């Protein structure tokens, strides 16, 4: 790595090493834009009613639904995954189609649980992504976190998930989630009187713990944690603490999707551009990947439920079971495609332009 590529200045260490440029990384990948959106929604609640359902549905298709498809597109476009992950790439999609069919045969017995599962899993998925991206930016910037710091960062990232798991008394989008779904009624009832206090405690922790961790890391030989890593945690906290649960899910859905699409497209493009036989420019790879994501999202979310309807199932139930299965497929696929083994191309992308510790 050339000396010119290495920047050790304090400001750069604090800003962090961007993938695109600081504004894009902070607003899209870091989720800064979602904080602006939250402020607008809280300050001017009527904005929510002014957004037409169709416009919101289009935004959902282009961000959230496309991001679900993105993990699949990444799985199949990343070189070597079919050999490395034969079950995931070849058999798992068939398993998912089967699960959809089984859940539609017993929609109330199984389908509702599948919905509860994905709604419970989602906040964990968002928290895990915030943690993963925070660590990745720290690593890229040359802030080498100790195992202990990483562990602390993980638990701090999980605070919004704990809130959604333990402190949401009612159903979200028609389904029980978290403790009210997983725990027996007796435990849920026992928890209910403490939920308010637990919620407040988690809020205080979510506001103070990231700052305390930043100070701790700064004082250590690792040097400062880049602010974008802190922003990842703040963004996730804002999503799940500032808005009521259904609103939080909708906001998180859109901005997590954007965050995810940005990072996955960056990895895809960098992979492709690094190939010796590459014949296309960056724009081609961006448009190809994103176009494939939108197309697949349309097929998965819009067309597939109607196929189940055509063979006699209820179309709305089909839609929601399909959504649940796609979510769970995405969570599982994500667990594999973001691995950062030394031999993996992901590692090369993260390492590119790596800032060394001073």
């Amino acid at each position, binding site marked *: 790595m050339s000396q010119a590529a290495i920047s050790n200045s304090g400001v750069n260490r604090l800003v962090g090493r961007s993938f695109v440029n600081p504004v894009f990384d902070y607003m899209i990948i870091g989720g800064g834009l979602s904080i602006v959106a939250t402020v607008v929604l809280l300050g001017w609640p009527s904005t929510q009613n002014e957004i037409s*359902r*169709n416009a919101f549905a289009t935004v959902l298709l282009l961000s959230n*639904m496309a991001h679900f498809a993105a993990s699949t597109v990444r799985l199949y476009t990343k070189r070597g995954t079919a050999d490395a992950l034969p079950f995931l790439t070849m*058999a798992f999609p*068939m398993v998912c189609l089967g699960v959809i069919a089984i859940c539609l045969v017993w929609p109330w017995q199984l389908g509702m649980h599948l919905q509860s599962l994905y709604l419970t899993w989602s906040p964990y998925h968002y928290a895990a992504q915030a943690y993963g991206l925070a660590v990745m930016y720290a690593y890229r910037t040359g802030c080498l976190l100790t195992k202990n710091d990483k562990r602390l960062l993980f638990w701090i990232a999980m605070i919004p998930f704990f809130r959604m798991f333990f402190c949401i008394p009612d159903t979200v989008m028609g389904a029980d989630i978290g403790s009210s779904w997983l725990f027996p009624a007796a435990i849920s009832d026992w928890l209910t009187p403490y939920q308010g206090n637990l919620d407040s405690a988690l809020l205080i922790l979510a506001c103070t713990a990231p700052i305390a961790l930043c100070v701790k890391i700064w004082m250590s030989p690792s040097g400062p944690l880049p602010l974008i890593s802190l922003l990842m945690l703040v963004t996730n906290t804002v999503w799940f603490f500032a808005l009521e649960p259904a609103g939080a899910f909708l906001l998180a859905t859109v901005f997590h999707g954007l965050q995810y699409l940005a990072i996955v497209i960056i990895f895809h493009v960098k992979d492709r551009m690094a190939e010796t036989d590459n014949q296309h420019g960056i724009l081609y790879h961006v448009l190809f990947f994103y176009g494939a994501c939108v197309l697949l999202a349309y097929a998965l979310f819009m*067309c597939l439920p109607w196929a189940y309807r055509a063979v006699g199932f209820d179309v*709305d139930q089909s839609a929601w079971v399909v959504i649940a299965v796609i979510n769970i497929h995405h969570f599982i696929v994500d667990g594999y495609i973001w691995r950062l083994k030394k031999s993996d191309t992901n590692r090369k992308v993260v390492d590119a332009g790596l800032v060394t510790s001073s």
Partner: protein
Amino acid sequence: MSTSSTSLQRQIYRVLYFVGIAAFLGACGLGFFYALSSTGHLPSIDLSATHAGYLRSLTGQGEYEQAINQVEVARQLEPYRLVDDLGAKAYGMLALGLMERGHRREAEMHFAAMFAELEKTPEFPHDDPELLDMLSRVMNMSDRISRKTPQQVFLVLNNLAWLRATHLDESIRNGQEAVKLAERADELTGSSNPISLDVLAAAYAEVGNWGAAMRVARQAIQILEDANVDPQTVNELKARLSLYEQKQPYRDPSTASSVNSSP
């Protein structure tokens, strides 16, 4: 041995993969064209629009049970929004089904839509026995509906009572029900509306209560004469009164179309 079993496993995965791809592409194609043919538009990205299209399609085919299932699922996923332009009959059928399943809020939304549709209709529908039966069930459900929209309820009570009392088709007539409905309509107006009194008289005549029929008919005529309304209406009521005096119920000739068209 281990290599051959891994190889076999890969072969199985490969087969599953190609079957899965074929199944997925086939399913998406099927879904696309099914949505297009059954709703008239492309599979939408707005679930409420697909729900609306599908609900219209189901109610249009008279598949009310399935349509109620649809509403039941849709109401679980978001605050339910009424689907426009389903028609009075569909709204009523959905309202009844939802009420029976305990979804009072959504049922009341559909009742209100049904009344609004009936109010918009220039002529009260008289040639659909299923619709009339549905309206009878709605009217028998509870007084709660009357309290919410008395004007619209009055319209339905009155028209329905009239058809039950005077329809040319014997299978549609039901004297007992006509009396019940007409008495409720009359109660709503405090026995001061000559139209509802006229209907009540026809209902009494249908059950053979000639004394009550003549008394109520005379009361209606008196109110109209006092109010100096057009003599044609008064003459119509007088003609009906003379029928009751001869112990004959009134039959409304305008209901003839449904009789002629019935099999």
